[in-house]
């Protein structure tokens, strides 16, 4: 994966251009943030400073899901989970908030035949990656059940993209684990790009290693600064702890240790 260029962090005011409540779990937020939109690369994220009426709150990291460079806007896709995402889901068009970004490393440009594996909300950076190129690639999008599709297949489709859905209960697409679906595709893949739950990443990385396919993964960890200063977002690697926010979130799979005491 590529290192963020050191000069592109911006702390600036963004304006909510549009909010779309996908369903009671998921929400899309389009933000006018010209500089971020101009520079964001797939895999990078932003820190959102949500205005809370009572006391300060840590900013929340969100992957960039889509970019409209002409409009100077970026879109985030998130699940309403705790306080931060509840506040984010409560924003309305026209409100402003602070934002820091684009942050972190990004995916290398996919070559023809690249295979993308998204688990759950892991779709956010991979949707951006899939749209950032026109070469033929395959995107496997795996969720527990059809209800958990944060993003509809028609939103993802583009010429040259082969989209495969997988659900654990079979309520949409392939029934069963994404890893099973993956194994059939891996042999021919030029590289694997993945984002999602740790356990899925770990299995995907092993499968890729076995198949001799390069694998890039995007990680999540609790964050405070988002810029590599506080050393809070540690992930264990062969060379000691690295920072998810600035050494990552995109790592080469072989670099990081995903199992055991991390």
């Amino acid at each position, binding site marked *: 994966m590529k290192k963020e260029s*050191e*000069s592109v*962090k911006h*702390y600036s005011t963004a304006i909510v251009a549009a909010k779309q409540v996908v369903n009671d779990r998921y929400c899309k937020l389009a933000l006018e943030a010209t500089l971020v939109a101009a520079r964001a690369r797939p895999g990078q994220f932003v820190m959102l*400073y949500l205005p809370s009426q009572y*006391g*300060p*709150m*840590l*900013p929340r990291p969100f992957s960039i899901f889509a970019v409209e460079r002409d409009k100077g806007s970026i879109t985030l896709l998130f699940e309403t989970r705790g306080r931060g995402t509840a506040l984010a889901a409560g924003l309305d068009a026209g409100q402003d908030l*602070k934002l*820091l970004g684009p942050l972190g490393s990004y995916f290398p440009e996919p070559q023809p035949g690249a295979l993308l594996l998204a688990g759950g909300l892991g779709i956010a950076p991979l949707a951006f990656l899939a749209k950032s190129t026109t070469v033929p690639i395959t995107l496997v999008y795996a969720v527990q059940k059809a209800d958990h599709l944060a993003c509809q297949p028609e939103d993802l489709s583009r010429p040259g993209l082969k989209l495969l859905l997988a659900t654990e209960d079979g309520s949409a697409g392939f029934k069963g684990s994404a890893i099973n679906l993956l194994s059939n595709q891996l042999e021919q893949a030029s590289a694997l790009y993945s984002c999602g739950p740790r356990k899925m990443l770990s299995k995907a990385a092993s499968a890729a290693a076995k198949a001799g396919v390069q694998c890039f993964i995007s990680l999540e*960890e*609790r*964050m*405070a*600064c988002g*810029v*590599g*200063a*506080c*050393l*809070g*977002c*540690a*992930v*264990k690697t062969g060379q*000691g*702890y690295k920072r998810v926010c*600035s050494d990552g979130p995109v790592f080469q799979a072989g670099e990081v240790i995903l199992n055991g*005491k*991390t």
Partner: protein
Amino acid sequence: MEKPDLRVNLGGLVLESPILAASGPFGYGHQYRKIFDFSQLGAFIVKGVSSEPWEGNPAPRLAETASGLLNSVGLQNPGLKSFLSSDLPLLRDCGTKVIVNIVGRTVEEYAAVASGLDGADGIDGLEVNISCPNLKAGGMAFGTDPDATSKVVGAVRKETSMPLLVKLSPNVTDIKTIALAAEDAGADALSLINTLSGMTIDIDSGRPFLGNIFGGLSGPAILPIALKMVWQASEAVRIPLLGMGGITTSADVVRFMLAGAGAVAVGTGIFYNPEIVSALKEGLLEYMMKKKIYRVEDLRALAHRGGFAGDN
């Protein structure tokens, strides 16, 4: 109207502003230099440096709590050599004074870092973090015992003629005894407080949330505790105090000064607002103009002397 004078003398360090960056949250500084102007700071305190590299604690290392933050970074740092060759150069000409926070697991380790840093180009002072576990005495932090405090501070004092700050741990029965021990052993100023020991539990897994089980609590939640310790220390010692713990507003800055701090540091606050340093400085200036206080030194410990005349 006259523009208030923000200069303070912190144990021999003359600072242009009484608002400093606390050790840790800002790391080694270069990441934040792109985000805010370091010349707004009275001084920049570098994250803890040890004689050899420290790996730090397992993930997760951060948990947000009510108005607070638990961290268990575990003083991860690249060690003295790498700090001097890779990090310090990036701080030269950063626009403000640089104080280096030093950590160790034995008295000898503390002395070794101090000796290695003493007189290095680009360093204006040292801050000894005595909250580290004392490996030779069962793992209790040096800063929880007056004798251990004395030993560490004395050993560091021998290695340096630079202004020496000693950073106290709040996890003690009586902060005054520790403050006195540090002063007697040669501290030029005291920094307080470091984080309070705490933990949280993930009710879903039923296990401690942090990889290290325990972490240090910082942020607005701890401010009332920090303020009291500064108040008490200012009654116990004569050397100046650098107050910190939960500062997020200029009213907080003022509170620490009224309680006895000559200067203050902001730590966790930078996470909430990357522009906090200039916001605090502006707010402090506004307050001083309103109160007709033209030297920030005059705010120091005013609450011990009856506050402002009149009954506002």
